[in-house]
């Protein structure tokens, strides 16, 4: 692994998503093999179990994790982030077990955007984004010119360059999410994880965020995993979907393969209608009733 966290794919920018996409298959960046996890009090019955799951994530790929609340999406994300070691099986990033990576090494390779980002004292966007350079610095850690250049680039890519002198706590939801994304990009990760990043965002900001993630995945060669409740946005922007239900991985595949009306009705417990647009993207409409 190279210490800079920069890979060959990141250096040469790739073509955007489009019909020209059959390209030689790249080796998976992340491979999850029969990984499981169980929350259990000492000696007690387990409270929640994520059953053994297997899939991989490739460079440039945007993977969406779907499922109801409590289906194990966040647990899966924490397995990918390496903050939970799997109870069985393996979660590997370019051949290394993520939960055994040294903290700094891991932070150079995996960036996580969490749902809530509480701040104790006011901080400006620029300083906040600079925090993303922490895994690369040593000692007293004064930021270098290079750190500044990376942070600027991250701000541009996240669409937050105009916010750099603003205070974090005075930003709107959408602006704040861009700043948080910029900090994650400043980590120059191989794998970018986002836990319900569209929560509290209005529709325009949601679409904007997903479009950016799509572009970042393509241009930078990052593997991006997004946990979300937005079925239609996931169908529109994700390459593949992982569908979870009560700790079980029901399906892994392209949106077309996963979005089956009956399957989704059963998982989400609501009446819905799936149609396939001319472009082949599934579209979900909700009719308001309940399944049994």
């Amino acid at each position, binding site marked *: 692994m190279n210490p800079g966290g920069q890979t060959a794919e990141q250096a040469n920018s790739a073509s955007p998503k489009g019909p020209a996409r059959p390209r030689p298959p790249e080796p998976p960046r992340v491979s999850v093999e029969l990984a499981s996890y169980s929350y259990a009090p000492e000696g007690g019955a387990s409270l929640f179990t994520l059953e053994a799951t297997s899939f991989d994530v490739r460079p440039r790929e945007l993977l969406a994790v779907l499922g109801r609340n409590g289906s194990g999406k966040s647990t899966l994300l924490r397995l990918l982030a390496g*903050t939970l070691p799997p109870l069985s099986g393996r979660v590997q990033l370019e051949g290394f077990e993520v939960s055994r990576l040294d903290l700094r090494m891991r932070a150079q390779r995996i960036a996580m955007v*969490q749902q809530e980002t509480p701040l104790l*004292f*006011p901080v400006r966007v*620029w300083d906040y984004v600079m925090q993303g350079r*922490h895994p690369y610095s040593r000692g007293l850690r*004064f930021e270098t010119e290079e750190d500044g250049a990376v942070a600027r680039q991250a701000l541009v890519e996240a669409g937050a360059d105009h916010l750099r*002198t603003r205070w974090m706590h005075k930003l709107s939801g959408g602006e704040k999410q861009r700043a948080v994304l910029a900090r994650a990009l400043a*980590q120059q990760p191989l794998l970018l994880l986002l836990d319900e990043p569209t929560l509290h965002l209005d529709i325009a900001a949601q679409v904007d965020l997903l479009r950016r993630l799509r572009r970042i995945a393509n241009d930078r060669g990052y593997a991006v995993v997004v946990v979300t409740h937005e079925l239609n946005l996931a169908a529109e922007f994700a390459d593949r979907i992982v569908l979870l239900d009560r700790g079980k991985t029901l399906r892994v595949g392209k949106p077309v393969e996963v979005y089956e009306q009956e399957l989704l009705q059963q998982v989400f417990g609501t009446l819905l209608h799936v149609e396939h647009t001319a472009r082949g993207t599934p579209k979900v409409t909700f009719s308001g009733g309940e399944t049994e």
Partner: protein
Amino acid sequence: MRALTPRKLLLTCAALAGVLLLLVFFSLKFGTRSISLPDLASLLYHTALGQTDRVSSDFRLIVLEIRWPRILLAIIVGASLSVAGASFQALLRNPLADPYVLGVSSGAALGSILSLIWFAELPGATPFGAFAGAVAATAAVYFLGRRGGELDSYALLLGGIITASFLSALIMFLMTTISGRELRGMAFWLMGDLSTPSPVAPGWLFLVLVAGVGAIYTTAADLNLLLGGEQEAMHLGVDVVRVKLVVYLSASVLTGLAVSVSGAIGYVGLMVPHLVRLLFGSDYRLLIPATALGGAIAVVLADTLARTLFAPTELPVGAMTALVGAPVFIYLLRRRMA
């Protein structure tokens, strides 16, 4: 780009050190007996050159043997308490944390009193007792402040206040039931007092101060990230467990150090970091050294006022800091709730 540079760090610290020097000079001058500037300058000049015979012995006694040691103690106590406060604020992720408000100072006071009672003959027993008391009180407050596995701001403050009052009751109980020569002056000492010379040489105290602040300073960059939550910090490569342990032990050492020297001087650890943040921002790489110097300035100023305002009567310096600090605390609390 605005970011902290070593240059900005040095300039800020140099400016604060300048203010502190100036203040020390005036603090040497003023007192029950004021000394004229030329006399003071000549005294310091000749002392610095080692020509002690050319100095009035009266002035020498007042300035060098009464005021100077006291100022030195004020510097050590102010720096320790302020850095401890700034550290507790990051550690407990609570901007209102302060060794006094959290009951850590009371723990240190109880520890030093117990060590006086049980191990009076051992040298260094008081500071060590104060440190042990501070560690125990911090642990107690930490567990009282947890709710559902998370640190809760208000549970923490309440836990601190309750710990402080419980420990104060224990201290009162000890003081009324045990009569000993050492315990007599304690009522004054508990209010925070710098007039009693420390039994430990200031050089040693200074060494402990530098070690404690230095240890915390090695985690300064990590503390910046810890302010955003432990999970977030971990995702950015911070070894959260190690940082918390270093800061917890060092902040307890600093609190123990301050309390064993001067009793419980309140609110310094709350006010000084807040003022420094307002002036220079909340980057801990700058905040820690600036807070150490700012704390020294604050306590030297408070003590100078305490001994000159109603001269020849002296106020305990803790009363001075509480007079200013308590209203500031209420203000910060209300602003937070608004």
